[in-house]
């Protein structure tokens, strides 16, 4: 298969879930065994908003609303059935689902939502702390209404966009009056979701079992979900072929193996279902370095990268090129008019000459330390490509390879780098995941943020303004202006947007049917039969 075919596949796949599934009979019951590569010690999604946690916890603990391909605001109701922001941005009212019980039998009420919001999301949420910073009180006029009160005007659009990832509701009766970070329920989850937590055997597996009293009639279809820890890169593919597991999400089967495994009868490859978890391949630039503080040099670097080649050769077509910091999938915020920087080595060379960096006798203009993030095969491979691309314009980059903790320390605390390859994740709203990449004045040690010394007073102003803007359209306008400005400045270089691949046995039904599928509740997943 060639790359264009795959891209059209990708586009077509998004429409698949809309097709009627009635033709295939779905059997109740069965155990779905999936590959897992990490075992978070704290599985509480109200505290840790990460895909590793959600992968397991989203089946047990539910948010107020989940992302959907269709539906108002791209949301499907979960524990909340309706939500309405006040025009002044000072409050937001949630109508909660009735007849929901916790896995230990207690009823779910507005008190649980109020407690989760004020005591967990606002105080301990790794991302929630920023979004719910101005949350002052949660009123609970009755058991099924929760009204959030904000000290400062807070955009309803932001709260809506935060619902899928940052509003997991935990039981008040288990957390109240305890040390929340050390509560045993962070490992033995208790929620309202379609599956109950059964056991975690470290290094081996985590097992969930069906919740017989789930609020949604006739759900879930599966009896059990087992997450088998498979640390070896080849293990997931082998286990799928041997039918010991039925599904591998988050590209547990490496892109390099996909061509082969896609041809195995009974195995299906899904390239959609991660749109809400889009990662961005980015070059971070240390603006403190003299040569790199010149925008002409940064533009030269942006022109040196052949984005089409990167998508074709490194991502094997399972990615799209990108020029700005908001991915194309987010049609609301993505600024389509950002021109960006095409592949143009001549222009890059001219810019470097103009900036006063002539080639030396050895053809080298200056030298840089390049630190590729070790998080993905693709970030490492792109590091190798970038070194070659920079060599073509007379910049000699020396690759410094680190493991994960060493990379974080070097880049986000010690700031001991010139350029890096990074992979920030976009989380549905620029205020959650994007502004932190560009606002100035962050203390050293805050990871995945602007530690590269980018400073533009105008950008800081836009970020401040947007944070207090209630009107949806005006917010969008401001964030589009932000994208234009940081792209003009080449605060960092956006190269590609990528997400993950799911590989599953073809008798597993309802795979990849929402934009955050791997981290959604899987209540409709089942076996054909």
């Amino acid at each position, binding site marked *: 298969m060639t790359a264009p075919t795959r891209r059209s596949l990708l586009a077509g796949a998004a429409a698949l879930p809309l097709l009627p599934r009635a033709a295939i009979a779905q059997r109740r019951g069965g155990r779905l*065994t999936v590959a897992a590569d*990490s*075992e*978070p*010690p*704290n599985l509480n999604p109200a505290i*840790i*908003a*990460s*895909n*590793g946690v959600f992968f397991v916890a989203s089946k047990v603990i539910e948010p107020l609303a989940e992302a959907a391909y269709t539906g108002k605001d791209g949301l499907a109701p979960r524990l909340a059935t309706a939500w309405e922001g006040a025009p002044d941005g000072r409050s937001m009212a949630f109508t909660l689902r009735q007849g929901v019980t916790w896995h230990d039998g207690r009823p779910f009420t507005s008190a649980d939502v109020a407690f989760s919001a004020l005591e967990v999301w606002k105080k*301990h949420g*790794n*991302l929630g*702390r*920023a979004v719910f910073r101005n949350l002052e009180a949660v009123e609970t006029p009755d058991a099924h209404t929760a009204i959030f009160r904000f000290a400062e005007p807070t955009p309803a659009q932001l709260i809506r966009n935060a619902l899928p990832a940052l509003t997991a509701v935990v039981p008040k009766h288990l957390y109240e009056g305890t040390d929340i*970070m050390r509560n045993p329920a*962070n*490992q033995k989850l208790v929620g309202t979701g379609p599956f109950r937590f059964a*056991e975690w*055997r*470290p*290094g*081996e*597996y985590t*097992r969930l079992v069906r919740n017989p009293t789930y609020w949604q009639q006739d759900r879930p279809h599966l009896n*059990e979900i*087992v997450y*088998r*820890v*498979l*640390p*070896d890169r*080849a*293990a997931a593919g*082998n*286990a799928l*072929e*041997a039918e*010991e597991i039925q599904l591998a999400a988050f590209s547990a089967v490496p892109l390099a193996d996909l061509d082969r495994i896609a041809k195995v009868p009974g195995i299906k490859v899904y390239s959609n279902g991660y749109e809400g978890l889009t990662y961005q391949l980015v070059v971070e630039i240390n603006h403190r370095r003299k040569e790199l503080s010149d925008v002409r040099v940064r533009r030269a670097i942006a022109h040196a990268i052949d984005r089409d080649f990167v998508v074709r050769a490194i991502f094997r077509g399972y990615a799209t090129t990108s020029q700005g910091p908001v991915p194309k999938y987010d049609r609301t915020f993505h600024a389509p008019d950002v021109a960006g920087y095409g592949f143009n080595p001549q222009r890059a060379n001219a810019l470097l000459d103009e900036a006063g960096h002539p080639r030396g006798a050895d053809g080298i203009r200056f030298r840089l330390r390049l630190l590729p993030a070790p*998080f993905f095969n693709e970030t490492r491979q792109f590091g190798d490509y970038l070194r070659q691309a920079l060599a073509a314009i007379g910049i000699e980059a020396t690759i410094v390879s*680190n*493991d*994960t*903790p*060493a*990379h*974080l*320390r*070097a880049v986000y*605390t*010690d700031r001991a780098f010139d350029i890096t390859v990074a992979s920030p994740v976009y989380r549905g709203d620029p205020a959650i995941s994007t502004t*932190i990449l560009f606002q100035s004045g*962050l*203390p050293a*040690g*805050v*990871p*995945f*943020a602007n530690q590269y010394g980018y400073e533009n007073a105008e950008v800081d102003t836009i970020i401040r303004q947007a944070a207090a803007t209630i009107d949806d359209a005006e917010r969008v306008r401001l964030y589009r202006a932000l994208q234009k400005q940081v792209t003009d400045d080449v605060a960092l270089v956006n190269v590609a947007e990528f997400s993950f691949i799911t590989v599953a046995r073809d008798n597993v039904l309802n795979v990849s049917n929402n934009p955050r599928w791997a981290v959604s509740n899987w209540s409709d997943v089942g076996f054909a039969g």
Partner: protein
Amino acid sequence: MADHRAFTLLRRRLLGVVPVFAIVVLGAFALLESAPGDAVDAYLAGIGGGDAAQVAALRAEWGLDQGPLPRFLAYLSALARLDLGWSSAFGRPVLDVVLARLPNTLLLMGMATLLALSLGSLLGIICGARPGSLHDRTISLAAIAIYAMPGFWLGLVLIVAFSVERRWLPSGGIETVASGLTGWDRAHDIGRHLVLPVLALGLVYMALYLRLMRDGMAELWAQDFVRAARARGMAGARLVLRHVARNALLPVVTMLGLQSASMLGGSVVIESVFAIPGLGRLASEAVARRDTPLLLGVMLLSAMVVMLVNLLVDLAYALLDPRVGSGTGG
């Protein structure tokens, strides 16, 4: 007499434990200290970020806001109270984590050693009984080929051949997940899961022991005492086993003790390839997550295992060779 020798040996070994443990603890601690980044950096990478206040609170909670020396002293004083500390990577006590993994590693290593030793000596005796014969050359060649294979590659080939192509054996894990099996059924299930990893780990050592046995025997045939025995009319199995093989076994047993540490290292790779929750894989996870107490716990336990194996080897030595451990030498 034999009891006395064993007692002396035991006492000497126990006295050696303290310096060995001190070196292990200091070495592992210094190793992780010298690696850039700490457990909080590793944790933050896993959760995708957090703000400055959270980062500082985490460092304080895990005691990482203090320098290496106070942390090391705190660890030692806890260790003196037999407290191995708290694993940040798993969010539970180190002792619980390592004890849960120990049986799997012991089982894997024990079976692999058994396979290597029995098959290695058997084939070694067959080869050594008639050095230079056709079956000696064939078996020796095969052994060298196996010895040249990396363990992980052998493991992957075995998985593809016996789990993927023919679904005879499971491709990984230590037992069927939540199978509800008990007693012999469970033992049978674990046995099936161990076949391939034990082969992948054990065959390499089998080749080594075979080589040692065979070469040792080949040399012994020329020794005076063998010729004397032959002159007395001794021949056949009695000569091969009692005089030649028994003496050739000594270097094999020596190697067994030395190799127990290297086999623990080899199990890191095999445990990863076969997704077996064991100590080897735990050690590599502890390094990747900068979980110092966990790494120290694994190292201490591994050191104990290696020393125990060597003690057993010495005892076996004393039984095999009456010259050893008579009090003055060895």
